[in-house]
């Protein structure tokens, strides 16, 4: 079916040609789901784009062969290539919110695509569109088809996208991160649909993803890529279950398991050359401890309610407020890690912003170490909690001011809270703190854009520590990172937490990651607590229906794979 041999893709730049994909080979048979897995920069999406002939300019295929059935994909001209797209190869993109033309009805988009490739009356195309949508699990398709994309929910939209990719019966569908933007429940439905289409209609899928759990669940065969190169490929159970290559082994070791808690991830790069033979941040450690054993501080929330004003749509009716959090009460034990899990829209981030005083709760009380913690604007800029509660954010690319040097970013809490008055002393301490989080102290004179995502997250952790906090709130700190980098950061957070007696609130949508970190867990859904308890108990025997469902639907890999 699809055969790719020695594919090489290059992007010309002023520094010479950059090789994005090198010597890539793979084979996908009819009805086969082939997973293409790798970390960011591996060149997975470039392979997909090269096959369907939509490489971003100025990239070009410099070497190798690609054949679909009898057709040589490299020798056809651009008109033939365009006619082939949709007819024989189609594609599904990551974000269903932006993949559909907002100004056209679903029906028009479907019929247009069918008529572009097949000569049939409009009524026949319309009938096929209805049947297809029904097959995708959209009820009342002939009526729903009249709607515009914004009238569908995220999961439904991805079904429409799949219907669009499928409506001309292509042989191969390239799915680029098709479930990354979806919640687990919707993700499992979409994956089931893909599996069924492969089995029943014999459509081949090339499933590009960074999520090894997804691959383990539905891919028949898998290719592992790294930095544009093929690492290994073969049947999924063989490659992921019994990896031969060191890189695959490391990758598998870094994936957090859902079914157990492991003390530390085995990461080869840890304590790498950057810190070897130099300071390990002893001075910073001593400064943080202040010569004493740390006294941890706990946190309580009692009946917290948060509501946002709704969007006004009428002069007469008051807009209905959107309730983001309702009746949230739980205690965070001093010196422990509390995990907060939930899908998108569950109110996790709102909770973090409420704790840090960015959002004012409608009602309810919060305390920090026994004393009252006012919310929103009621918390003055000089309130002690401003120093005691620090936060690590989700997006390493926006959480550091790109116009300031690392030194200036790190020194901010030191002078703001009057912790260190002397400028030279501040600089020395910042440099040592960098060493403590596993960075080279020379980083102090560089700008954020000179670092990778994982390094920036370490800098963000250093900034939080330099306030001498008691409570550290981590809002999805690893969701923008690759698994191996994630494993390193989780190790670091664990080390720092136990060394300095920090109370940590760890927020994530990823159940497996939370399991690795948390002592206690709070499960949130639509702004309400579904379940709380010690994490081992919640993961072993979940009480709430919602928790049970969530755990069941999260893609996992067979436990004998490592």
């Amino acid at each position, binding site marked *: 079916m699809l055969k790719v041999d020695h594919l090489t893709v290059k992007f010309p730049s002023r520094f010479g040609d950059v090789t994005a994909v090198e010597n890539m080979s793979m084979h996908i048979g009819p009805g086969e789901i082939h997973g293409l897995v790798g970390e960011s920069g591996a060149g997975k999406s470039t392979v997909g784009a090269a096959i369907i002939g939509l490489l971003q300019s100025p990239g070009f295929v410099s070497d190798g062969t690609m054949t679909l059935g009898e057709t040589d994909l490299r020798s056809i001209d651009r008109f033939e290539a365009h006619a082939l797209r949709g007819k024989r190869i189609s594609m599904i993109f990551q974000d269903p919110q932006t993949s559909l033309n907002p100004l056209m009805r679903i029906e028009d988009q479907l019929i247009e695509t069918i008529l572009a490739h097949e000569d049939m009356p409009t009524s026949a195309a319309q009938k096929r569109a209805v049947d297809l949508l029904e097959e995708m699990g959209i009820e009342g398709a002939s009526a729903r088809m009249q709607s515009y994309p914004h009238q569908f929910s995220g999961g439904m939209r991805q079904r429409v996208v799949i219907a669009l990719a499928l409506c001309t019966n292509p042989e191969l569908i390239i799915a680029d991160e098709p479930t990354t933007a979806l919640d687990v429940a919707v993700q499992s439905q979409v994956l089931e649909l893909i599996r069924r289409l492969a089995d029943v209609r014999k459509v081949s899928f090339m499933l590009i993803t960074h999520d090894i759990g997804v691959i383990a669940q539905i891919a028949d065969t898998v290719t592992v890529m790294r930095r544009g190169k093929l690492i290994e490929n073969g049947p999924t159970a063989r490659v992921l279950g019994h990896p031969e290559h060191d890189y695959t082994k490391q990758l598998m070791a870094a994936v957090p398991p859902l079914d157990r808690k492991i003390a530390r991830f085995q990461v080869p790069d840890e304590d790498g050359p950057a810190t070897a033979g130099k300071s390990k941040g002893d001075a910073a450690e001593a400064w943080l401890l202040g010569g004493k054993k740390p006294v941890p501080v706990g946190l309580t929330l009692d009946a917290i309610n948060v509501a946002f004003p709704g969007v006004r749509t009428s002069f007469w009716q008051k807009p209905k407020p959107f309730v983001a959090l309702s009746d949230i009460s739980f205690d965070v034990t001093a010196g422990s890690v509390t995990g907060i899990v939930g899908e998108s829209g569950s109110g996790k981030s709102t909770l973090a912003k409420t704790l840090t005083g960015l959002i004012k709760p409608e009602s309810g009380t919060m305390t920090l170490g026994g004393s009252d913690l006012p919310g929103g604007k009621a918390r003055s800029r000089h309130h002690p909690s*401003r120093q005691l509660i620090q*936060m690590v*954010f989700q997006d390493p690319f926006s959480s550091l001011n790109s116009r*300031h040097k690392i030194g200036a970013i790190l020194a*901010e809490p030191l002078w703001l809270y009057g912790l260190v008055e002397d400028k030279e002393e501040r600089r020395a301490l910042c440099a040592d703190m960098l060493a403590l989080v596993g960075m080279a102290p020379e980083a102090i004179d560089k700008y954020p854009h000179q670092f990778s995502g994982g390094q920036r997250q370490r800098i963000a952790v250093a900034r939080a520590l330099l306030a001498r906090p008691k409570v550290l709130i981590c809002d999805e700190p690893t969701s923008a990172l690759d698994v191996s980098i994630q494993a390193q950061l989780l190790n670091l957070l664990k080390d720092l937490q136990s060394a300095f007696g920090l109370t940590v609130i760890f927020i994530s949508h990823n159940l497996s990651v939370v399991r690795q970190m948390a002592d206690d867990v709070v499960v949130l859904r639509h702004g309400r607590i579904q379940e709380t308890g010690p994490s081992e108990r919640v993961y072993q025997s979940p009480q709430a229906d919602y928790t049970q469902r969530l755990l069941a639907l999260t893609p996992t890999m067979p436990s004998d794979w490592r």
Partner: protein
Amino acid sequence: MWAFIKRHEGLWLFTRSPAVMIAAIVALAIMIGAVFAPWIAPVNPYDLASFSLMDGLLPPVWEEFGSERFLLGTDDQGRDMISSILYGARLSLIIGVSAMIIASVLGVGLGLAAGYFGGRFDAIVMRIADIQLALPAILTALLIDGIARGILPPEMQQDLRVAVLTLAIALSLWVNFARTARASTFVQMNKEYVQAAVMQGQHPLRIMFVHILPNILGPLLVIMTVDLASAILLEATLSFLGIGLPADSPSLGTLIRIGMQFLLSGEWWILWIPTLFLIALVVSINVLGDFLRDVFNPRLR
């Protein structure tokens, strides 16, 4: 040096584009000429004693009857064209640059604050901007000029011409800055580094000017260039309409208005040389602005 340029996105693009380099040289040359006009210009066109009617209407040096004393010829009063143009460009640039600076300080300040505080303050600023938008730049400038004529006593009007003109132009341009600054600030407000600063309890003024402002300078720089061009054009237009600067202290626009009288006669240089000069100045500023836009918006490259 070369390695540095190659690594620097903006400088690299600069060296790749001859049009932009020429524009930069032209703009720079005109600016230097304007700034040092009192030292460069052969005569002082404001000084009635320095020229004589005897030299009136001499063509440029390469034409028949041209004189080497007046390279680009003279006007009907016998003023040297080069000197008039240099002094005119000086005045145009003084007004344009000051108007642009006033507009940017006012606009960026309001836009930044509106974006940061949001809510009612934002609503008020934006409503004022709406009203300003309903009265386009040239109208605002004309109106302020008209008001000044009504309020100020006639003897002050001459002295305050430049100030009134500058203010009129500045007030008609601030909305651009305010809207751009506000929109960019909104984008930055959602960035986590701003939230981190708010959360830490930093002072709002520090967050606005130390954290946010450096991050929105790119688009503002583009607006500054484009608006400098607009300000120069606006001044020329007002002077052309006869309500800008008077004939005894001519800007480029006034020179063109005077030259209009010679549109039908043979003395083409009195009209077309200042016109070409004005166009060259504005085109090169706009080319630079366009270049900056491309540098700050890689998607459009």
